[in-house]
């Protein structure tokens, strides 16, 4: 059976910046991942199948909504704990982390932050336990980086109780298996509002997206709304406008910054171990300068990202992390991870091509991660706007 040999790398003794509880959380998630996920993930990815049985387990271990207060079934933990969990999940597979990110940051977060007390009590405990899986509908076929132009809309049904939802959302993680969708749609005044749509509502379908070369162990789909009658009480009452979904994205992007660090660590760890075992020209390839250059640059970039991400976590705990700071970390870390996955793959030569090692799977997964939740270029423009005060989007 496949054995996950991963060992953590902490070049700047970052562990000294963490509490014993943080380390226990990180190590527990790693232990669970090594036992339950690492042995099966490659097979699921090869077959492009979502390991749906892990949803309940993710809930049991506490990876869904760890920062949500315990009275709603969450973990009541801090932002660094959340980040460390995402790092450990993505260390195994970006799709696994995506499932948890979507559930925690894009479904539970808006229900907790923008929802009514009744909505919180109805949905959060079931989402936290993994009894229900949720998804988040913002991107549309013709509106990706520019979500403000969305056409999905809600109109008053005229019966005093319901609204009618029409439109379609695309590239939605978890969609094919989700019981609940937090959907962003324009109301009759053209304002963006969040609305909770449940599986089974008439006119609501979730066709699966096939043929992905990335996040193959994660389920992706569309959300199609054809005159779906949704009770008005499902509208999130406490937010209007683009700041609603953008608030969710800030939370998710923060988790991605940590997650990408996990993928990078796994690739580095694999490449480092391989470079010491693989003998060519009578010596380990790790003894050649070109291999050492790759490995030295990898651990340098990982160490920089570890410090950046930890600091962002502290700022987030203090409620001081800005959306632009989160953009910088997401952009930097995902790019760092994808470069390390590609360079690491070269160290493994032909072996890096097969599923025997995680490298190529990480590399392909990260193509999605560098695109979703704000593309690499869009995050650059966010930083550009932040430092110049000038908007380059329009």
């Amino acid at each position, binding site marked *: 059976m496949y054995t996950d040999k991963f060992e953590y790398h902490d070049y700047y003794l970052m562990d000294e910046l963490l509490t*014993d*509880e943080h*380390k226990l959380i990180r190590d527990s998630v790693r232990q669970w991942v090594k036992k339950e996920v690492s042995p099966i993930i490659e097979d699921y990815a090869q077959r492009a199948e979502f390991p749906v049985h892990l949803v309940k387990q993710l809930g049991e271990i*506490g990876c869904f909504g*760890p920062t949500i207060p*315990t009275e709603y079934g969450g*973990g*009541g933990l801090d932002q660094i*704990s959340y980040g460390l969990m995402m790092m450990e999940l993505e260390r195994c597979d970006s799709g696994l982390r995506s499932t948890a990110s979507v559930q925690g940051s894009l479904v539970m977060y808006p229900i907790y932050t923008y929802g009514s007390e009744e909505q919180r009590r109805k949905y959060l405990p079931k989402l936290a336990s993994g009894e229900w899986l949720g998804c988040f509908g913002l991107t549309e076929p013709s509106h990706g980086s520019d979500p403000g132009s969305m056409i999905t809309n809600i109109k008053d049904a005229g019966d005093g109780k319901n609204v009618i939802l029409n439109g379609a959302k695309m590239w939605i993680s978890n969609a094919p298996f989700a019981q609940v969708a937090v959907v962003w749609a324009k109301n009759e005044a053209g304002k963006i509002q969040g609305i909770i749509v449940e599986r089974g509502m008439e006119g609501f379908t979730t066709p699966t997206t096939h043929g992905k070369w990335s996040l193959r162990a994660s389920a992706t789909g569309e959300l199609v709304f054809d005159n779906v009658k949704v009770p008005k009480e499902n509208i999130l009452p406490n937010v209007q406008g683009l700041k609603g979904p953008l608030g969710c994205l800030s939370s998710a992007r923060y988790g991605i910054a940590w997650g990408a660090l996990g993928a990078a660590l796994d690739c580095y760890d694999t490449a480092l171990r391989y470079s010491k075992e693989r003998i060519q020209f009578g010596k380990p390839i790790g003894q050649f300068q070109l291999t050492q250059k790759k490995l030295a640059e990898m651990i340098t970039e990982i160490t920089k990202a570890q410090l950046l991400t930890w600091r962002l976590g502290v700022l987030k705990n203090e409620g001081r992390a800005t959306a632009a700071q989160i953009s910088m970390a997401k952009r930097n870390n995902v790019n760092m991870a994808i470069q390390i996955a590609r360079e690491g793959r070269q160290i493994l030569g032909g072996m890096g091509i097969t599923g025997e090692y995680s490298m190529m799977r990480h590399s392909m997964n990260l193509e999605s991660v560098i695109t979703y939740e704000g593309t690499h270029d869009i995050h650059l423009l966010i930083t550009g706007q932040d430092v110049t005060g000038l908007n380059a989007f329009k």
Partner: protein
Amino acid sequence: MKILVCISKAPDTTTKISFVNNNTEFNNDKVTWIINPYDEWYALVRALELKEANGGTVTIISVGGTDYEAILRKAFAIGADDGVRIDANPTDAYFVANQIATYAKTQGYDLVLCGKETIDYNSSQVGGMIAALMDLPYISLATKLDVAGNEATVECEIEGGKEICSVKLPAVISCQKGMAEARIPNMKGIMAARTKPLQVLPAAASEVLTEIVKYELPAEKTGCKFISPDNVEELVRLLHEEAKVI
């Protein structure tokens, strides 16, 4: 049912072992400490299973300094109810057993469980010494433990088979593989661990019966010699003269 589980810390199995002070002390630098797996996976988890089935409490006990607290919190996160740390350097097996026995004697535990050994020194002494000091029956190397009323049924591996014993409680039992399945702490457990009571007690006066004079690492592995399958005589000669095993 009141159960006491003895918890020891051990270096993580990936630790690179080295010694300092002229090979008289273990080098603690950069060591990641874990709960001794036999204590955690088998003794603690089986204690929790028995509590879940029969009611009662699971108390953990360690002999060690403040550096033990991280592993004790992990044991709380896994499910132990409360804990005791005897604040002393765990010098040798007798000292540790004496501290635990002195505390446990007055507490009325039905079961005292420990791992079959700690994975650093592997001396397998503490459990037996606790039983002797408390004047209780001791069963070592148990792979299965069930309790009915005031009697425990214990299964142990023996050469070529297994032995099933029954013992009146209270008793001391050392646990090994087969006893239970390791539990991974979840976030709820980790949160709950924050508020579980840990009592810190001063050490009782006790002798230390052994001291470590010197550590040595095993000899470095040397390369393999390959002998042709046709050359059995040479193989026999090497086994006899060099390896000295026949």
